[in-house]
């Protein structure tokens, strides 16, 4: 039972990781002068949209997200609306935190917001996909004994890894190496992406390693 789930998770994560790779390479075909540093926002948006699309598609297909209680149209619309609202909120909150951390307030506001969107895609969007727009469930998952399935555990790991990646991404910014990737927010977005990919890889192996110790409460 568990092994099947872990295999499913491995394939799902592999698909997301490959999507990120493809999203990095694909714009060369459409955009002239494309490079990850030079036209950073193009890369960022392509990465964001690809990850978002694949996440939504995957988790809808896999059926990880909680089954809706009612099937009325209005219920679905409200849920959709709330999902969008939460995503927007999380973008704003990330933006605020990043600015409080010392990002320029006005100068490169678009870049900062794009970075916030990327972080939200890596963290909040997955939460919405897996748990639905339900803050209580999110808080439950992100507490010590709150994980109820291996998907919850993987969510914890990937979210943590992306945030830590973004945090470490800020480290090279003050160095005087004059590299193109030291420009705000390139190193942070790259760090977050790297952390996310690492999280995707680490989560199944970690779960596999600790599968004896992981006991989940029933829903």
């Amino acid at each position, binding site marked *: 039972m568990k092994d099947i789930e872990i295999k499913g998770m491995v394939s799902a994560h592999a698909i997301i990781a490959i999507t990120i790779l493809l999203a990095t390479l694909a714009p060369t075909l459409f955009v002239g002068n494309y490079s990850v540093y030079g036209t950073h926002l193009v890369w960022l948006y392509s990465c964001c949209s690809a990850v978002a699309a694949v996440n939504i598609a995957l988790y809808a297909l896999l059926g990880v997200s909680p089954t809706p209680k009612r099937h009325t149209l209005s219920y679905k619309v409200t849920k959709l609306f709330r999902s969008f609202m939460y995503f927007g909120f999380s973008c704003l909150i990330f933006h605020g*935190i990043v*600015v*409080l*951390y*010392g990002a320029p307030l006005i100068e490169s506001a678009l870049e900062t917001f794009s970075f916030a969107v990327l972080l939200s895609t890596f963290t909040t969007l997955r939460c919405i996909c897996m748990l639905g727009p339900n803050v*209580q469930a999110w*808080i*439950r998952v*992100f*507490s*010590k*004994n*709150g994980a109820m399935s291996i998907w919850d555990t993987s969510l914890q790991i990937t979210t943590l890894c992306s945030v830590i990646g973004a*945090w470490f991404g*800020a480290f090279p910014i*003050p*160095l*005087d190496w004059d590299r193109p990737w030291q420009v705000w927010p390139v190193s942070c977005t790259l760090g977050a992406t790297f952390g996310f990919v690492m999280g995707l890889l680490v989560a199944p192996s970690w779960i596999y390693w600790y599968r004896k110790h992981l006991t989940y409460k029933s829903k």
Partner: protein
Amino acid sequence: MPALSFLDILKFVLMASLCPHIFILCNAGKRVVFMGDDTWDSLFPKHFQQSFPFPSFNVKDLHTVDNGILKHLYPSMKRKDWDIIIAHFLGVDHCGHRYGPDHPAMAEKLTQMDQVIRSVARLIENDTLLVVFGDHGMTDTGDHGGESQKETDAALFLYTPSMLVSTEQGLAEPMVVPQIDLTPTLALLLGIPIPYSSIGKVMVQLIPSGDLFDHNAQELQQAEALFVNAKQVNRFLETYSLVAKHLPQETLDHLQDMYLKATKNYIMLRDAFATHSPLNSQELKKLISDFHVYLVSVQEMCKVSWAQFHSLQIIVGIIVLVGSCVVCFIVSEFASIVESSYKELLFLAVFTGAFASGTVAIFQFFWLEFEAFSVLGTFTVVAQVAFLWKFNHLKNSNRYFLNRAVNIINTALKGELQMTSPLIVFMVFLLRCASLFSDSYIVAEEQVVSFLLSSLGLFILVHLTWYGNLLHSFIDGFKTTNPGMSSQQMAFVKDKKTMHVLVACVALLMFSLCLSHVFHGCRDEQVICTPSLFLAPLCTLQDVQLRNIHYVLSVCSLLTSYYLVRRWLCYYGNFNSHSLAVFVARFELPLLVVCICLFWAVSSTPEESFVNWQQFIRLASSVFPRVAFVLFCLGIAAVFWNPLTVFVKPKVLSEEGPITQSYRASGCVSPQAELQHLIPHIYQCMRRSYQVPKEEGESLKDEYYQPTVEAFGLGTVYSAPMLLILVLFQLLLALLHPEGLALSFLLMLLEAFAILQIHSKTSSLYRCRLYSDKFSVPWCVVLMWALASTQFFYATGHLPTFPSIQWNAAFIGFSEGHSNQVLPALLVLLNTFSSCILLAVSCPLLLFWPLICEPSNTAKSGSKLGELKSDNIPVMEMKLRDNPEYFSRALLQLMARYLFIHGAQLLASVCAAAILKRHLMVWKVFAPKLLFEASGFLVTSLFVIISLILIMRVDVCLTRWVKQLIPVDSR
């Protein structure tokens, strides 16, 4: 030269020792007339034939020196009994320091200088050379002393009515010459020998020859000058290399070869010229360039090798620091052992240290040269080793202590593991120390520190959420909708409130961190950077409206910080007693604020606007700050003299009922607060601690009719004087800074408040669930406090570089200058390390704050449950008195932790400077950083001790007060 700038004086002296400047000429029998800066006169007394010194100490005085010079310059020139006139104008320099380069006053000054040069040039005769030069340039802010090009580049202007340089070889574009080249050039032009220890290269273009159009003759003349110069330099080098062994031998040999070859060539050519044989101009040119290369190489070599390092001293210093850090760590972690046997530990350490150092001193005295450094080093190292040995001994031999220590450590560890995983905190601390090893991170230290500080704040939130301490009852509350479970709901409501407060505090912390970047200064290394507008003194602001806005903002921030503290004291009932401390809070603080505001108003009025009031303004600008200083000193003395802020009210029974009456007794206490802090509770506890028999578990209702005495503000008896001292220091330091930085000080108060609140809320969240540790302050919070102190060093406009020291602070209240060096040094020190001082003085608040904030939790939940048992009574800081041994232990631990963090940072920056001593940036970044860190550490230690003394003083007073009280009770 700016007055008082110790560094510049140092440089001056250095310059004098490295390359003797023009003034050495005085000894060559030349008649020198001097006028200007009186520093010259004190440096070279009786050297001048005639001198007209003028006081140069006051940076704000732009005109005295210049006008004095102008009065004497022209008559002296006309008298013709001189060989050299030195006129040192100071106005431009002072104007730069005071107003910056873009001020109308500067334009005025420069125009004046222009006219002086014009008229002097007109007056001089054919055999006279006019040399106009500056010893430094200035930055965009008008300061200097750094190494940026703008600071080190200065103009050199030479003029003589006769033709100096042939017009055809006139210079297409201005030449750049090192300043040390001026010495040999002027010496040769005056016809005196080049000073022995100069390594400058003569400016050959200025060497005159009889015939300007005979190239060969002129070049030979130049070659002769260079020959003389090279000979002198070589002589110096030979002697010097005998004394100083650090010059690389190969380079010396190489230089010697160069010198010999060039000299041989020169002598050959000279002989050829003497015999009127035709000169080979090619060879002559080569010769000149050989001399050039030789002289320049000597300069290079000296530059490289004059920076010497004493490896042994570096290593000993690092060992001493490591030892101190280890001792601090041990004291903080094994506070119980150390505290219980501190006498033995200290005695042994001091005794062995003194013994060892005494032996070394005697040995040195008789057989070697006496060296204070090694004696002190021995003392410290031996004392530390003895301390550690004794400690180890104690730990091993004494099972009792060991068990106790292990127990305490276990509980503490358990608590701390739960509270903040020490791994992350340790990692943040490690990152902070590692950041001191990179010049880029030191340049961006402000950002680095606030980044880590925000991370710690957010980390606490995330950690609390993860362990369910913050939100678990939030969820439980949703799950158990059982109305019967009131206590759980109570907890839920309480936790929700705590959660909101916590989130708000973290937001406040990050927000104030973010805002504090507004007050930054700029280093030379930061290219795209404009210094904060708030750093400029108000009088330099041109725009009247902007100036007014800034003034109002500064005044408002002062008033706000006073108001906040006043509110706090009122709230906790510390505002009613008749003690001196309360007097300070009531009357002296507002007076101080008024004084500062008036001083700012006076000092920021532009001079030209009130010409008639000139005298008054000058008087006021020295009187107000002096009054403020006196008030500050009086305030400190008063708080130390009588620090108790407890208001005792004898109980009078009346029909109105005791509760209503006690409201009236303290007008400014809010009823709700008073209910909480009504002191019968505290009084009861106090009595319990003094073994006055009393039945336990008595309901509070009876208590109201029982006591004969009510005391207000006993709960915050320790923290109220701390807060008063903090505000006194804050006001003083705000006075010493540019006006705009008052805002920054307010921000500091808010940030400290946020950290304290975060600390108290987290500890209350844990304490009620997990363990009742005795007051221990976790590493995480102490680290935050220390980081805040570094961060506000930057946020008060300081930088760890020498040019950015705010020298103006020395003249606040003493615009006429000082008679001694102690007071200005003290003022500048206070100004520079203001953040260290404030945060070190208020450090014990970390211990008190959770206790102060506790009652609002327990009391509320208790009162709603309707079971106001005496166990639930808020006792706040009286808890500390109930457990004196835990109190002193926790205090010791807190201080040791705080000092450990600062000491480890110092150690890191010492190691960085030692390891990277050949780094390109060592003199620009690492060495100044090390000096600032070290001085900051000293200041921090001093003020930590001062705050400890205050607490002890409060303790003594409290004991005395309680003794007085007991007879009242028994009546």
